[in-house]
């Protein structure tokens, strides 16, 4: 009965799709029109303009712009700070998928077992998400402060004084340190999203798996995690895009320093464009960033479609 219905709707879809292409086009236009109306002036036009800019050597104010073709792109390939920035962005992708999502997932699973005050706890974990990044920068600046920061004090107190370094001023530690702060602003969001996903997960599924002999770890892996696959996809896409676009928190905490060690593409782009007077080069960086973000999103969507 149901099968027959499925077949019917499938063949109906085929008819709609194949038989009347013009009708489909108009339909698309009607649905996409309003979005496109916003998309063209606010996304496409600036993007084309930025690409145009990237073909010039220009300091942003001078009346004359020198056309340099793709030289700005070539410059990026030979610019060690560009590669440092890109590498840092990739670190961000990895950490922001692993760190906040893992923490968020664990917290969500724990919270879902809490009966009373679940919302309050979730709210507490969510607070960093809505905090102003200036405040985040200040808070973590204090935590990492080599003189009075609680982190180093703690390390010394437990006999790990040799690890008590100047986190944000250390070329190797700065990026990881900012990423931890970044994860802190994101794990609460992950937790709330996962918690929402867990709400739709039937408790009886977990019980069924328990009776079927699955221990806590296997239940987590085989039942809970798959049930959250929509949430996982959403958060991974957000993490990837967010990681490539990351700017504020780096800017607030280190401005890309020390010695450009914690630079990411967006901060480097900002610095080149507005502080270093290389707007054309900055534009080329922006175009490359956009390409990477768009590519990552498309790849993610393709993966999702295939599933």
């Amino acid at each position: 009965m149901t099968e027959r219905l499925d077949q019917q709707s499938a063949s109906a879809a085929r008819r709609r799709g194949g038989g009347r292409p013009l009708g489909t086009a108009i339909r698309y236009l009607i649905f996409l029109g309003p979005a496109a109306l916003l998309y063209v002036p606010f996304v496409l036009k600036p993007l084309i303009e930025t690409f145009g800019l990237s073909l010039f050597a220009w300091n942003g104010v001078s009346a004359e712009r020198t056309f340099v073709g793709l030289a700005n792109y070539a410059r990026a390939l030979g610019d060690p700070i560009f590669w440092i920035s890109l590498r840092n962005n990739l670190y961000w992708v990895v950490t922001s998928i692993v760190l906040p999502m893992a923490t968020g997932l664990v917290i969500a699973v724990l919270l879902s077992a809490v009966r009373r005050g679940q919302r309050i706890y979730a709210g507490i974990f969510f607070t960093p998400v809505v905090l102003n990044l200036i405040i985040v920068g200040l808070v973590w600046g204090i935590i990492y402060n080599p003189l009075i920061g609680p982190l180093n004090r703690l390390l010394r107190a437990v006999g790990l004084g040799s690890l008590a370094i100047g986190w944000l001023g250390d070329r190797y530690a700065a990026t990881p340190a900012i990423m931890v702060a970044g994860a802190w602003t994101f794990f609460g969001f992950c937790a709330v999203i996962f918690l929402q996903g867990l709400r739709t997960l039937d408790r009886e599924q977990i019980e069924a798996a328990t009776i079927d002999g699955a221990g806590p770890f296997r239940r987590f892996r085989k039942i809970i995690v798959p049930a959250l696959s929509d949430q996982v996809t959403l958060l991974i896409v957000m993490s990837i895009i967010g990681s490539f676009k990351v700017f504020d928190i780096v800017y607030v905490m280190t401005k890309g320093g020390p010695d450009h060690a914690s630079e990411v593409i967006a901060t480097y782009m900002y610095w080149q464009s507005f502080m270093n007077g290389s707007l054309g080069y900055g534009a080329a960086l922006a175009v490359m960033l956009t390409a990477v973000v768009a590519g990552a999103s498309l790849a993610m969507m393709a993966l999702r479609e295939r599933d």
Partner: protein
Amino acid sequence: MGISLFKTGLLASALLSVALTTGPSLAATTVLNVWDQFFSEEPNKLMNEFVAEFQKAHPGVEIKRNVLDTDSIRATLPAALTAGQGPDLFYYDAGPAFLGPLVEAGLVADLTQEYAARGWDKSLVDWPVERVTYGNKIWGVPNEIEYTNVYVDLAVLDQLGMKDKLVADKDHPELLTLKSLDDFKAILEASKAKGIVPIAFGNRDPGRGGHLFSYFLTLTAGKDLVDKILFGDGRWDDPKVIDAWKLYKDYSTAGYYPPSPNAISYDEGNALFFNGAAATNITGTWLVGDIMGQVADPSKIDFFLLPSVSADLPLSAAAGIGSTFAVAEKSPNKQLALDFLDFIMSKDAGKRWLKEANIVPPIKDIDIKGLDLPPMMQRVVEGATLPLSYNLDVVMPAEWNDAMKTGTQSLLDGSSTPEDVAARMEQAWEKAKAEGRIWKAH
């Protein structure tokens, strides 16, 4: 028909509401847009007073201030001016990396004639005016003289038994200095031995290390060598430049800075000093206001100037004007903007900059006798008359600044040597020079 009637009604009510809200002065208001960086409490208050008084004296003029921090104004002003939507008057970094490109793009009004017409050529101190001079033309009106110095916590110094190291300069008895840099080392060693941070130094924003470098370069090379590099055939990999970096680095190796200066922000570094946890703080006269406001007992703080490495160099410091006022070429209200500048650069206004905002304006012959300035501020004014050298970051092109600032950080973590940094500075300098992006005053 019905629609057009409706439209007319709308228009009428819109007009009416404009008339009601703007009131009787509707006809005569001229708006002067000013973008400045006076975000600290006292200068901000003073600017607002100036604005109010000027408006009172000029009915029909409304001055709209837009107060921005340095990064924000750097990021927004060029585009705004280019688009013709910028301010009439703005307060912006002087120097070839900032005001320079605006000048070259024709966005800044040439004030050379105005200097003569308004007598600024006589009333303002020469060297600050030189800093806003490009190609023999004057493009701005400097507003504050700043120079590097060493703040010292007298209570700590006393505790270290080092108070007698401070001596009056022989030519400027109002100014404190040391007999030699060795005496400075002695103070730093003593405080290190007592577990007190010798120099409160935070270099997370490497502009701070840049100030130290400019200062140390003044001590090792003097203004003449820097002039030779800037305007002649001198080089940034000159041994004396390397000496300045060595001094900077030696103080780090000797443990005179707090641990991990690259991790400490400027404010955190200052806080160390303000709280009595550090003996000295090498920064600049711009900090006087904060010291007055934030140190529990400001009378225990004083400052001195470091003696030069060799005796034939005069007592000096690295000086600059920070930012400058400039007028937009496209502004329809240039004269009004200049009138306002005239107003805030008068001798009377100069006294108020000093007294109320702890800012030393480049105005000659201000009589500070009746002003009852705090002793430290009096010294700042006195120091402004020294043969001061350059606080370099402002007058240098961007890539040189990057080489210098990253140098301050990479010297501290040992990833560069003084020679490396000097070489990179010279390289950046040559590139900018070749591309015509350096400061050409004359």
